[in-house]
């Protein structure tokens, strides 16, 4: 019995979500192997070998894996599983955009069900996962020989990124499917911490009123706190903030030490994405806003007055 964690990386380094996934894999109780599938990804593979609790790193390197195309990465994972002669019993992906893209392809090819977004490991075949935007928690049991799992990173602590000394084994890269190709990427340039990895998040809602106001009010607060910026769906739909800043059921799931919600009413879909934060602050002028029901500290005030005041007081 061995668990295979599919690392999320940028070829140079390992992304934080991989560390939480390793913790979930360790909770299953089996050996933990990590697959680094990429191009010129030696540094990422070396970093994976340092993660505490990892016993082996498999490094597949080739141009076909550079962009992380689902068809090629899935083929790589399937090749490893079939070469392992039944040794791999659990295949774990972080529940990130990349992980969610590939995992079901692997499950379907293996003819097994997939367990999405687990937040707890009860036993090697039984897991907990939120359903209905986190309004219910289901305990589910899989009877399939191989369990394909995506891991909600906020449900597990990050494994230590140092202290391990796993062997790195190389394997041939999967051949190209020939059916899809990478064209380009527009990555939002930002010096801020990544939303899903940030210790503090300041998040703005529709009450900000415009893209200019969103920047004008939220940026100084984020700068002062060294925080990442998030947004509600209403703010993103209205064009005040970029798509990848959306926090909620269908956006990013976050659990920072401090979440400051400014002018966010708190629809259930938004709460689903942030209610596991350690401390929640809500600033809203509507005393009836549902966000106050999950806030540790609620400030009933006009955010255009309160937020600049907060920036000055910090």
């Amino acid at each position, binding site marked *: 019995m061995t668990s295979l964690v599919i690392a999320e990386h940028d070829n140079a380094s390992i992304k934080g979500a991989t560390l939480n996934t390793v913790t979930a894999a360790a909770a299953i109780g089996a050996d933990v192997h990590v697959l680094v599938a990429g191009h010129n990804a030696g540094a990422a593979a070396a970093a994976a070998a340092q993660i505490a609790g990892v016993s082996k790193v498999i490094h597949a390197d080739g141009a076909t894996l550079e962009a992380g195309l689902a068809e090629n990465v899935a083929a790589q994972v399937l090749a490893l599983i079939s070469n392992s002669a039944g040794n791999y019993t659990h295949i774990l992906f972080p529940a990130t955009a990349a992980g969610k893209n590939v995992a079901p392809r692997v499950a*379907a090819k293996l003819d097994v069900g997939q367990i999405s977004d687990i937040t707890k490991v009860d036993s090697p075949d039984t897991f907990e996962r939120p359903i209905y935007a986190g309004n219910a928690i289901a305990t*589910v049991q899989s*009877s399939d020989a191989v369990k394909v799992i995506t891991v909600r990173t906020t449900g597990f602590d990050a494994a230590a990124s140092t202290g391990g000394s796993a062997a790195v084994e190389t394997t041939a890269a999967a051949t190209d499917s020939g059916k899809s190709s*990478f064209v380009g990427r*527009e990555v939002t340039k930002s010096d801020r911490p990544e939303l899903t990895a940030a210790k503090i998040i300041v998040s703005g809602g529709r009450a900000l009123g415009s893209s200019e106001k969103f920047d004008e009010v939220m940026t100084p607060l984020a700068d002062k706190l060294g925080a990442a910026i998030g947004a509600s769906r209403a703010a993103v739909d209205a064009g005040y903030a970029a798509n990848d800043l959306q926090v909620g059921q269908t956006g990013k799931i976050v659990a920072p030490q401090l979440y400051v919600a400014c002018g966010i009413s708190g629809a259930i879909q938004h709460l689903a994405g942030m209610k596991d934060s350690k401390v929640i602050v809500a600033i809203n002028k509507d005393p009836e806003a549902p966000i106050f029901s999950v806030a540790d500290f609620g400030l009933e005030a006009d955010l255009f007055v309160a937020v600049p005041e907060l920036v000055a007081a910090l």
Partner: protein
Amino acid sequence: MKVLVAVKRVVDYNVKVRVKSDNSGVDIANVKMSMNPFDEIAVEEAVRLKEKGVVTEVIAVSCGVAQCQETLRTAMAIGADRGILVETAEELQPLAVAKLLKALVDKEQPGLVILGKQAIDDDCNQTGQMLAALADMPQATFASKVEVAGDKASVTREVDGGLETIAISMPAVITTDLRLNEPRYVTLPNIMKAKKKQLDTFKPEDLGVNVAPRIKTLKVVEPAKRSAGIKVPDVATLVDKLKNVAKVI
């Protein structure tokens, strides 16, 4: 080129579900049901492709109980040309739905299959990718922009940290993200027209698919509640609480 669009009947977006007292699931009796919002975006995209002249026929498919007919009628009111219901009372998990859709793909030979990226009830985010694997098609998930030219589609995808564009050869599977389009409001004349459109019904057996669930739900419970916090009178108190009580700044 035909487009197949999968639509799921789910508990309406605005309903806050309750966990049943015997912890066997959530109570969906007498609750408003609607089309999964991401699937509505999928239907809209397919219909827009038809209006652009890229697509000749839009076929909506739903798998589940008899009432999924209503969901299909909604899809046809948005503009789908006909509907297919795969009727079963059995609990359908994503792998089973992907197999049913694969059987229909074999039958209908669409150039594109468009699905919502996830259903808002089980929050699985699996079916589109599974279908792509089973049908050996390329996939473009979490789409925020789709352009079809010849036998290729260029799809912009919402990924962590920004946007990514990939080119896929058709036939292919696309799953929709929130910002792909804004579905139109259905008008009364179109609802009336939709009632007359063709709707075929199959059973999973007719398609040779075993839909038995692979994953067993042992129990469903309410999530842990956050203990109610306090209201602070002003910014100074808030800063004091964050520094000295919560110690997070």
